[in-house]
């Protein structure tokens, strides 16, 4: 149950800036995903929150209290690592018991030979056993308690790692790409399980991933990181529909958003591939980039035309790759109805509704379309 605040966090390794001033606030009970391409500094940020890595400047506050001088274990956060990081020589039971023993037993009680003889230890061990049994029931790992990590499958190890995090009842859970070592099917299954776990525990989850699908499906809020900066945060729907930066638009969504070259005219109107869109903006005239999601491309009618160069039929949906006539550009359209696939090589007309259009300036920043203009063009679907 914790609220985590980051202010102006900076970190560099060997003179390279890895985090360039991160300001962010994670609310109590939130499932927040930090998502971004590999190497953008997600893990580093998570490790700074955990206290495993000191930041060069900036402050981390948990529930309003600065924690920068506090050891990782005393911050009372739990972390699940990509490699699970289970102690290979300990059984599942002992792995889960480690954080409890470290917290509840005194140094003397932890001694290898003498400790178990002390009367106090026996009482505490009984309480620890009860806690672990309860967790094992919840996670369905009760039959595995005697096994060593080497004898567990990837999914089972993952559960044990979650159990080790849960058993200490931390203020927040930190996950660093916990699903990326699992096979695709299991990953989808574990997504649902983790989301359910979050709802049940009502704890703060900070979840790092480079997989936008994981972020979209599990989180209550997503924070997108690129090159050491946090460029946008919001609900999955906001991030998907309303990206503030072309890098966000391109990173979120699969297949990728289609980007077409455009031009803003002096009167604020927008041209794409030589066709005027019924849209306008206040930005100064010049080049721009126009993004349209694959599912918003409408095949069969419209001012543009292209030829089918590739088809991906997934059964429930299909993706049509089009080469746009007269250019080297490719775009992808999603077809919901796979019973009527266009033929390979056939020429197709296509278009898209104005409200599907997202416009970005040459630096990648989103350009707001003029509201009254967007409202006026309700009736013609195609330009």
């Amino acid at each position, binding site marked *: 149950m914790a609220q985590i605040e980051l202010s102006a966090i900076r970190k560099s390794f060997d003179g390279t800036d890895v985090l360039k001033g991160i300001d962010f606030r994670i609310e109590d009970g939130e499932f927040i995903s930090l998502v971004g391409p590999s190497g953008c500094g997600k893990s580093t940020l998570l*490790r700074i929150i*955990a206290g*495993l890595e000191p930041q060069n400047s900036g402050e981390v506050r948990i529930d309003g209290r600065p924690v920068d001088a506090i*050891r*990782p*274990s*005393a911050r009372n*956060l*739990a*972390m699940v*690592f*990509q*490699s*699970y*990081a*289970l*102690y*290979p*020589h*300990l059984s599942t039971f002992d792995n889960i018991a*480690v*954080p409890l023993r*470290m*917290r509840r037993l005194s140094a003397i009680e932890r001694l290898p030979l003498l400790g178990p003889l002390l009367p106090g230890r026996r009482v505490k061990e009984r309480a620890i056993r009860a806690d672990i049994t309860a967790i094992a029931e919840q996670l369905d790992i009760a039959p595995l308690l005697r096994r060593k990590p080497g004898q567990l499958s990837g999914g089972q190890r993952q559960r044990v790692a979650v159990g*080790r995090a849960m058993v200490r009842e931390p203020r927040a859970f930190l996950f660093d790409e916990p699903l990326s070592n699992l096979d695709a099917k299991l990953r989808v299954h574990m997504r649902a399980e983790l989301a359910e776990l979050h709802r049940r525990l009502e704890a703060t989850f900070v979840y790092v991933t480079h997989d936008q699908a994981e972020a979209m499906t599990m989180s209550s809020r997503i924070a997108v990181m690129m090159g050491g900066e946090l460029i946008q945060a919001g609900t999955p729907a906001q991030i998907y529909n309303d990206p503030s930066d072309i890098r966000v638009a391109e990173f979120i969504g699969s297949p990728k958003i289609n980007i077409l070259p455009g031009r803003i005219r002096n009167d604020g109107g927008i041209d794409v591939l030589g066709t005027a869109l019924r849209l306008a903006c206040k930005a100064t005239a010049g080049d721009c980039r126009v993004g349209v999601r694959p599912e918003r491309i409408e095949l069969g009618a419209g001012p543009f035309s292209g030829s089918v160069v590739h088809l991906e039929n997934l059964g429930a949906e299909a993706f049509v790759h089009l080469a746009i006539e007269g250019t080297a550009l490719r775009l992808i359209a999603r077809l919901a109805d796979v019973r009527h696939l266009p033929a390979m090589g056939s020429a197709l007309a296509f278009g898209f509704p104005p409200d599907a259009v997202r416009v970005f300036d040459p630096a990648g920043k989103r350009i707001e379309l003029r509201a009254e203009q967007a409202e006026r063009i309700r009736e013609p679907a195609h330009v």
Partner: protein
Amino acid sequence: MSRTHSVTLRAVLRHVLLIAGAAIMLAPFIWMISTASKPQTEVFSSELHLIPYRFALVENLREAFAKANLLRFLLNGVIVTISIFVLQVMVALPAAYALAKLRFVGRETLFALVLFGILIPPQATAIPVFLLLHKVGLLDSYAALVLPFTISVFGIFLMRQFFKTVPDDLVDAARMDGISEFGIVWRVMLPAAIPAVTAFGIFSVVAHWNDYFWPLIVLNSEQLRTPPLAVAHFRNNEAGTSYGPLMAAAMVIIAPLVIAFLFAQRRFIEGITLTGIK
């Protein structure tokens, strides 16, 4: 047809070579066992024969045990080698952990010094260390046999290389769980590094069990003698060298290592491949 022929020929040739090599390596041991089994008269007879006409192994052993307190010397060997190994581990593991997993200024320089330390032969520092022990008044004691070897740069190097292969996440998980840095060394790194510790243990115990040079320099008292010194002492006895008992004693002192080898043959081979020592 001809191919299988040449293959078998090559295999035969290979085995002949290997057997010849093995024979050269084993000859001294076989000679030792042979001599240990011969009565004095046969040892000095001019004809060469491997199998004694009269087996005198039991007599020779009895004489060896009567002449010198062999059990005491074996015990000394055990005390000294075990103490050295335990202390070496207690020094090397924390040092290796720091060099492998902690980030601090000068770490690479320190590691370079460790590597440099491996290059220095123990004989080169023998006299300064001897003088030091003399000044401290520790000559002719167990401490003199043990202390100079407690810091093993080779051990630090070996363990550091092994710790490098332990994932950082495991160390971080231990920190999150509340284990202290020293706790991590003993509770997380040591169990993960058992193969490397075993390998180092084999190396260390064999080297110090067989060490002749250093005990010879620092010891005077008979009751502190280590096994190799004890054997050597059979030589300059007043009445000339009695080879039978000497070889019998030599058999006795290498027996613990040979028996240990037979019991832990696989570990031994693993360890030696791991360290790259031959």
